[in-house]
């Protein structure tokens, strides 16, 4: 009569799960009734360190909050401090920061596409995505010195410059990368296996996505057209840019949003390289921050907010980082209700979890 319900614990250690999130799945005959999330396995307490580290040295901690979205964290932090202290950063530094941010975005989306293919069992596609990603990482290492942690953003500008000859080389290399990514995108969009495992799975309506706070490609795949790059930070007002939005609301459309954003990022980099002016790359910073500001940047996973508050001393009073994964967890809980058990890894991966960021 009353069918029996089992509780299956999923994670934090699981072969198909890339991030340490724990879900208690209440299951009735292969269908998931509800899911209860649990995080807290990699909490490092990084926000407390702001009270003991000089505000100029905190950039090194900010960029190590996450390994995949590292440059944009440091960009958000530096931007917040520069707005509190009214520092005018030179134009060339803004262009360089934008170029590195878009490379970061390409790297993150290619990594995600590989993991998504792996969650479905399509290992060959996973390896091919990561082979293209190596080209992006090579460019990052040549220009900044690090493959994932760049260390090139600082309060008042950037630390390393890229020569004009190098910029031309990067621009030509991007054409080759774009052709290879197009080939991979064809598989994601047209292959019958991929379509069978992602179409109709994990559906979220547009109103639900807006109300529960879905940001980034999770929201844009459901029709919610929010992109923090439109608020006009760095050099985005001068580039020709429109957010990529799909309306179907399932895993397939979110995958399409990310695949198209890789191509869009490559275009943005080529536009920025054409328009970059000459000049200095940094200004000297004197004094201490006094005031507060919410700095909003667009990470590959969504909108990230750095709240900074200073009171005139060398150490800041508070730095709060609200990452996109933290706000995408309620939509995940909603999406999991009513799905089959075999689809749980695909749905968990479709919000692009980055639990290291979420718990700091």
């Amino acid at each position, binding site marked *: 009569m009353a069918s029996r319900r089992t509780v299956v614990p999923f994670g934090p250690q699981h072969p198909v799960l890339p991030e340490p999130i724990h879900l208690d799945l209440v299951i009735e005959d292969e269908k998931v009734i509800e899911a209860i999330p649990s995080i807290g396995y990699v909490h490092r307490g990084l926000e407390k360190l702001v009270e003991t580290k000089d505000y100029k040295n905190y950039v090194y901690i900010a960029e190590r909050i996450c390994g995949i979205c590292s440059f944009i964290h440091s960009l958000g932090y530096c931007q917040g401090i520069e707005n509190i202290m009214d520092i005018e950063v030179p134009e060339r530094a803004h262009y360089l920061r934008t170029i590195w941010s878009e490379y970061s975005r390409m790297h993150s989306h290619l990594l995600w596409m590989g993991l998504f293919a792996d969650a479905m069992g399509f290992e060959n596609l996973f390896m091919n995505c990561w082979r293209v990603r*190596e080209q992006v990482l090579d460019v990052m290492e040549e220009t*900044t010195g*690090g493959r994932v942690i760049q260390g090139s953003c600082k309060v008042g500008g950037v630390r390393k410059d890229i020569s004009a000859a190098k910029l031309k080389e990067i621009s030509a290399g991007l054409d080759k990368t774009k052709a290879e990514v197009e080939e991979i995108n064809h598989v994601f969009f047209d292959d019958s296996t991929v379509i069978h495992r992602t179409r109709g799975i994990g559906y979220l309506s547009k109103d639900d996505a807006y109300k529960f706070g879905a940001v980034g490609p999770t929201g844009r795949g459901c029709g919610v057209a929010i992109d923090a790059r439109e608020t006009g930070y760095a050099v985005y007002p001068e580039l020709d840019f429109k957010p990529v939005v799909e309306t179907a609301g399932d895993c397939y459309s979110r995958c399409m949003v990310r695949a198209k954003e890789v191509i869009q990022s490559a275009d943005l980099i080529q536009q920025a390289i054409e328009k970059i002016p000459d000049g200095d790359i940094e200004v000297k910073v004197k004094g201490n921050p006094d005031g507060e500001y919410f700095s909003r940047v667009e990470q590959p996973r969504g909108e990230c907010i750095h709240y900074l508050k200073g009171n005139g001393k060398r150490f800041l009073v508070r730095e709060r980082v609200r990452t996109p994964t933290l706000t995408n967890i309620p939509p995940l809980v909603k999406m999991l209700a009513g799905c089959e058990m075999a689809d749980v890894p695909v749905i968990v991966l479709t919000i692009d979890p980055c639990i290291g960021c979420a718990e700091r």
Partner: protein
Amino acid sequence: MGKITFTMAKRILKSLASGPATLRYPHEPAKRYDASRGHIEIKIEDCIFCGLCSKNCPADAIEVSKDDRTWEIDRFRCIICNSCVEACPKDCLSTSNVYLEPVFSGPLKDKTIGTEPEPETKEE
């Protein structure tokens, strides 16, 4: 169906002709660039032991002793951020792109003992 076979055949021939995409590390050396961050090196003859590198280090990895004329770096703490390289007034610190081999147990502190100061004709 024919289109898929054609794409697959093209892919197979391309892979057969160009070889594997991976590098047999550690038998072959890894790919490094000039700007790659490896480890911090010091030219001890030019050092004046002012201690600016130690004050600017965000990870507190450098210890400088003016009386003993020694410069010590803790390799496990160093995050190769180049703050010390930028702060040094005599330009005696530099970043080399060689990645240090892993060790079995710590601590790993490299201590460099400086040369004796020249009497009265020290460059400043």
